[in-house]
């Protein structure tokens, strides 16, 4: 026995511990039971008078437009969340809610106690619009809940249904309206753009007309024309030179013939005379040509080697012309020219002149004509070239203006085209909305009549009351025990005094006291059970209240 007792010291320890608490509890049973019952009863009463609230809820699906959006781009593409927010604001407006309150006879009890504004605020607090978030796709809104909390389940359902239809109707109407107004706006914009475009086009036209030929787009062509004109001029000049050489040659030939004729006949005075004048002018011409050639030669040799074909030909020509000048000089020395020019009537063919001379003369005449014609051509070409040069000089200036005008015109055209496209799209989208084929709200779950009240329901309140009662009872016991300053037992006393404790006399009850104690404890038990039953019964009663 004794050994067994010593072995299980830890369990004995816990036994002492438990016994201590059992004793405290037995002593403080009423300190526990009374607050416990009072709080429990209070919980039951609270549960009984607690206004039950019912929440009805409907789920609305946001249906995407039926025609794929790559075919018809929707006109109303603002963020669904923000649209839902504005919609909520609109629908929960004071006037609308007031109408709902009046139609459904909501808050009948508070009607005469509170102002309409308070009621509207109250109702707003009882309406919840909550988007359904798809986990992982926070930005996408595909459905939302509408719910309303009311004291009566039927009202909750009816008001929720009404709110749901308000939302759907509002969405449909505002979408169609928004879409139509977008289209109308685009239409006026398009008109403005068309006007602008035609103005710009006219401006461009005028500019082109005014600066025809000098337009930058004609620059290349002008350059080509210029080149061809220059080559033509070159050709004409060459031709002119050749003709003049020929003329010089013919003149020299004729004068030779005349010299021969004078030598042969004596009638070459006139010819000589004329020939003399001719010869001096010819000499001057030839010398000028020779000077020119020499100059050219110098410039050429400055640039090219002696093998360069131009250098070679120029050299040959110089040689030719040197011989011609020498001939002319010798000829002039032979017949010294009279300083006063004879009154020659022109080289009219002399019937007495030899056919060779006549031939040369006629040749000369033809050459002269040719030279005149060539000179005319040259003049004309030079004029044209000058004109072209003017134009080409003007072109860069014009180019800037032209670029400006044509840019304006292009912009106007682009603007017009994009507006046109948009307007057409918008027209299509509006038609879609009007045929109710666009994005739509569809009721997925219509509002149900809630068959359970919102938490906390009466059961929960009663249970909370019980739990709080037990906690309160324990708290009160602990408090009483803590505040109790009486001596509790031997160890307690030992701690406080040095005086020896001679004995501890346990409570002794005589038979009368014992009987009284038993009776008393029975009564206590009965009262306690009765109290607990009252608490439990009232709790159950409260729970069962409809």
């Amino acid at each position: 026995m004794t050994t067994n007792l010593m072995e299980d010291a830890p369990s004995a320890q816990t036994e002492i511990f438990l016994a201590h608490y059992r004793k405290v509890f037995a002593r403080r049973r009423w300190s526990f039971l009374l607050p416990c019952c009072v709080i429990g009863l209070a919980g039951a009463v609270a549960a009984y008078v607690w206004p039950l609230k019912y929440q009805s809820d409907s789920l609305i699906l946001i249906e995407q437009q039926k025609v794929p959006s790559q075919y018809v781009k929707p006109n109303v593409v603002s963020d669904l969340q923000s649209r839902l927010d504005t919609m909520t604001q609109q629908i929960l407006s004071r006037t609308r809610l007031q109408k709902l309150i009046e139609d459904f006879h909501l808050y009948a009890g508070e009607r005469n106690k509170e102002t309409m504004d308070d009621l509207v605020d109250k109702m707003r607090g009882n309406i919840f619009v909550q988007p359904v978030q798809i986990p992982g796709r926070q930005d996408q809104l595909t459905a939302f809940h509408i719910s309303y909390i009311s004291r009566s389940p039927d009202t909750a359902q009816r008001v929720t249904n009404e709110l749901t239809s308000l939302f759907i109707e509002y969405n449909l109407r505002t979408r169609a309206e928004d879409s139509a107004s977008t289209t109308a706006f685009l239409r006026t914009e398009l008109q403005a753009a068309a006007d602008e475009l035609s103005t710009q086009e006219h401006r461009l036209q005028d500019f082109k007309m005014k600066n025809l030929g000098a337009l930058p787009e004609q620059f290349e062509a002008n350059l080509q024309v210029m080149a061809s004109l220059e080559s033509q001029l070159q050709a004409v000049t060459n031709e002119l030179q050749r003709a003049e050489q020929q003329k010089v040659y013919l003149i020299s030939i004729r004068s030779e013939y005349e010299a021969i004729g004078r030598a042969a006949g004596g009638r070459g005075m006139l010819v000589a005379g004329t020939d003399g004048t001719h010869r001096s002018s010819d000499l001057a011409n030839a010398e000028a040509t020779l000077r020119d050639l020499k100059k050219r030669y110098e410039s050429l040799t400055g640039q090219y080697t002696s093998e360069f074909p131009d250098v070679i030909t120029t050299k040959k020509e110089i040689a030719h012309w040197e011989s011609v000048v020498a001939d002319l000089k010798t000829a002039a020395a032979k017949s010294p020219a009279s300083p006063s020019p004879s009154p020659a009537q022109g080289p009219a063919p002399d019937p007495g002149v030899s056919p060779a001379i006549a031939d040369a003369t006629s040749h000369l005449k033809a050459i002269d004509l040719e030279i005149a014609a060539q000179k005319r051509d040259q003049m004309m070409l030079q004029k044209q070239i000058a004109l072209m040069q003017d134009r080409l000089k003007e072109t860069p200036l014009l180019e800037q203006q032209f670029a400006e005008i044509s840019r304006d015109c292009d912009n106007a055209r682009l603007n017009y085209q994009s507006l046109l496209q948009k307007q057409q799209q918008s027209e299509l989208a509006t038609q879609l909305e009007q045929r109710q084929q666009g994005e739509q709200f569809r009721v997925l779950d219509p509002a149900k009549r809630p068959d359970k009240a919102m938490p906390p329901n009466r059961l929960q309140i009663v249970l909370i009351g019980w739990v709080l009662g037990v906690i309160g009872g324990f708290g009160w016991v602990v408090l009483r025990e803590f505040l109790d300053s009486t001596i509790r037992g031997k160890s307690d006393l030992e701690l406080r005094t040095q005086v020896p404790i001679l004995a501890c006399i346990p409570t002794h009850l005589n038979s009368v006291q014992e009987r009284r104690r038993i009776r008393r404890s029975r009564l206590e038990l009965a009262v306690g059970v009765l109290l607990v039953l009252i608490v439990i019964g009232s709790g159950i009663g409260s729970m069962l209240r409809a």
Partner: protein
Amino acid sequence: MAAGEWGGTLKRIFQNGNGSHAEQPRTARNGRGQPEDGAVQPTFADNFCDATVSRGVLTASTGPESMVFSRSDTRGPADESLRLLAHRLQRIRERRPMKTLVVTSASPKEGKTVVAVNLAATLAANSGRVALIDGDLRCAYVAGVLGVPVLPGFAECLEEEQSVEENLLPVSPLSFDLLQAGAAKRNPAELLQGPRLKEVAMTLGSKYDWIVIDTPPLTPFVDAQCLAAAADAVIVVVRAGHTSRDSVARTLESLKDVYVAGIVLNGADAEHSPYYKYYSQYRSNGALAAAAVSNGGRAGHD
């Protein structure tokens, strides 16, 4: 049930389980313990007139209905604790001579009277000559605890009207002599501060081995201080769940001029210790053994 009976019943229910002073003598007197009938409160005069003293011996009621639990034939936890108290006092006396013990406490209702009576009974059972004096001249209750008629006693002795010897009556079956409080005509404090106290103490001291004196509470009366000064040792009673910690300290402080033999913790339920379990097992084993002895023969046959 009549309304009056209801009132009486309810009154008893809500009265402290320790009982009232006035009721005890009546319960003891009819001896059957029927407090239900007691709607009439018995008075001091009642008891005095009814008192019957047969040949100078008081017969105490020591049955289960009394608060006297320290008899040689009982064996409960309460009388074991009193035996321990008596033993400890004997041990103290081996070291220092003492004969007169004053039982006191800070306030009323702590169990001074009950402890004094039971201590006297236990000491008497152990070692012969013991006297119990009811020194509570203000609210005497020793007679009530013992269930004996109220007689003149200590107060009369102090007033020099009667001798100590003629009022010291033996109490059967507890074998100690009792000097009751009596009825003081003057202020008890005055009586106790007078010269007679010493004489009475001397007279008693020569005749008895132990003299146990019950006293009124230390506050607000001076009586207990006077008695303590005249005695050899003081026993302080502390009632568990009743006496506050401060009052214990104050009491001990006020008794620092006299010898305090120790504290008796009254009404303390046995502290839980492994030995408590052992103790209860020991007791139940004893009961089992007794049962086995009584029907041992039959058990052997089966």
